[in-house]
């Protein structure tokens, strides 16, 4: 057996041991409030459709909020980095707003946007937008002066400079911001559902808990973490592809 295979096996062994231990304890306790992996698996099969459709709704909202945040905040951050006086004026406001936890603005948003999808997407956009704008601005206003000199001596317009120099050279830091934004859009998507929604995985989890269906709840959590792993892997792939010049240097 070679080294990598052994490591892979070890990687399976530990979670496997945890599952076995969990099942043993569940057997010993034999309580509906402490379901074992077998019950959870049964719950996954039983609630498959319900979980998938709810999680789909949650993910759609998260994706919409994330996309909206990217489309607004990345160009804004680049612009503020280039138009120096405006950046200096606006960045303290950004720092101030960024300290606000997203759930804190829920009542305010409800006042203006109601309790529907729009309200949730606004909150997610806010949550995802903060790390995006902060990282984009930080990157674009600390661009090496050499890049600016090159842009000016090649007679690029301001717009061309932002699009062709500032944006690509800020991408590594934007990617870091985007990774944080993905995590917080998922998080806020679920928590906002618990506060104001009739569907979504957050509602499903809350309902399971309220009805003491712990197995169903754990089934939902298992699903979320699986989706999280897939999203992370996907984001990693995209980042490697876009930033090959940054990582292979």
């Amino acid at each position, binding site marked *: 057996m070679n080294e990598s295979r052994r490591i892979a096996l070890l990687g399976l062994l530990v979670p496997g041991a945890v599952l076995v231990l969990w099942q043993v304890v569940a057997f010993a306790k034999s309580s509906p409030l402490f379901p074992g992996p077998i019950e959870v698996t049964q719950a996954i099969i039983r609630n498959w459709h319900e979980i998938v459709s709810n999680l789909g709704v949650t993910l759609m909202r998260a994706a919409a909020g994330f996309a909206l945040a990217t489309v607004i905040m990345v160009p804004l951050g680049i612009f503020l980095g280039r138009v120096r006086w405006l950046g200096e004026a606006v960045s303290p406001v950004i720092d101030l707003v960024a300290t606000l936890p997203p759930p804190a603005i829920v009542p305010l948003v409800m006042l203006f946007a109601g309790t529907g999808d729009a309200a949730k997407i606004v909150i997610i956009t806010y949550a995802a937008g903060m790390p995006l704008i902060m990282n984009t601005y930080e990157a674009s206003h600390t661009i*090496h002066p*050499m*890049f600016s*000199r*090159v842009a*000016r*001596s*090649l*007679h*690029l317009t301001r717009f*061309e400079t932002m699009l*062709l*120099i500032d944006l*690509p*050279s800020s*991408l590594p830091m934007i990617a870091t911001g985007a990774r944080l934004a993905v995590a917080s859009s998922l998080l806020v998507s679920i928590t906002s559902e618990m506060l104001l929604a009739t569907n979504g995985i957050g509602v499903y989890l809350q309902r399971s808990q309220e009805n003491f269906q712990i197995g169903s709840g754990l089934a939902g959590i298992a699903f979320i973490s699986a989706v999280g792993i897939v999203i992370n892997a996907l984001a990693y792939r995209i980042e490697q592809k876009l930033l090959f*010049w*940054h990582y*292979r*240097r």
Partner: protein
Amino acid sequence: MTDILTARNVAKDFGGTGGTLSIIDGLNLAVKKGEFVSLVGPSGCGKTTLLLCLAGLQSLTRGEITFKGVPVMEPPQGLAVVFQDYSRSLLPWNTNLDNILFGMRRVAGDARAKRDRAAELLEAVGLGGFGGHYPWQVSGGMQQRVAIARGLASESELLLLDEPLAAVDAQTRADMQDLFLDLARKFNQTCLLVTHDVEEAVYMAQRVLVLGPRPTKVVREVTIELPRERDQLETREDPAFLAARHEVLSLIRSMRTRKAA
């Protein structure tokens, strides 16, 4: 021949916490079309500041710089710069060929013709097979050659060179000096080379302008009485070369001792 670039009574101060610092004061110079001129001076005399001023990348405190008779406020059309720091002046997310094409954004012509021309220039700097590589995949000397090709690609009437060979090794340096002279002649390129290397200044140019200590100005003009065709061995042993080298070097050395005293 007409002056393509002139500087009249140029002065540049930098305001700092410890009062203003005068970098350039009372500087005059002129570069004619088709010439290869070197600007050489002791280290720390303000060469890079001067180059940035000449390129329109730095504002002046007093005086005037003109390019083709027009006062320089912003980097003028028709003037290109090859920076010393090639690792930052080339865009790492573009291939070498695309970096050269980037220098041609303001050049007229269709995409196909530009691409051919960029490939031709890459060939001319000896990097024919490296168009698809990225700058970080090739050596420092090769990167600087890409930067030079980009400078030439902009089809500028004047190329400002900020110590373009300072960061490459001695062997590559000699080769690149010849490559440069060759290209300058081939494309009839007017060049102003800023350098701290006296030998290089004399070897490359038809005229050497010697800069004084800070606040700097042109303190002497040395005409190099050598044919345009240069050779690393013969030129460097030519009495005219040695005389010019001696004149410039002793002048710069005298500035240094005066400063130390």
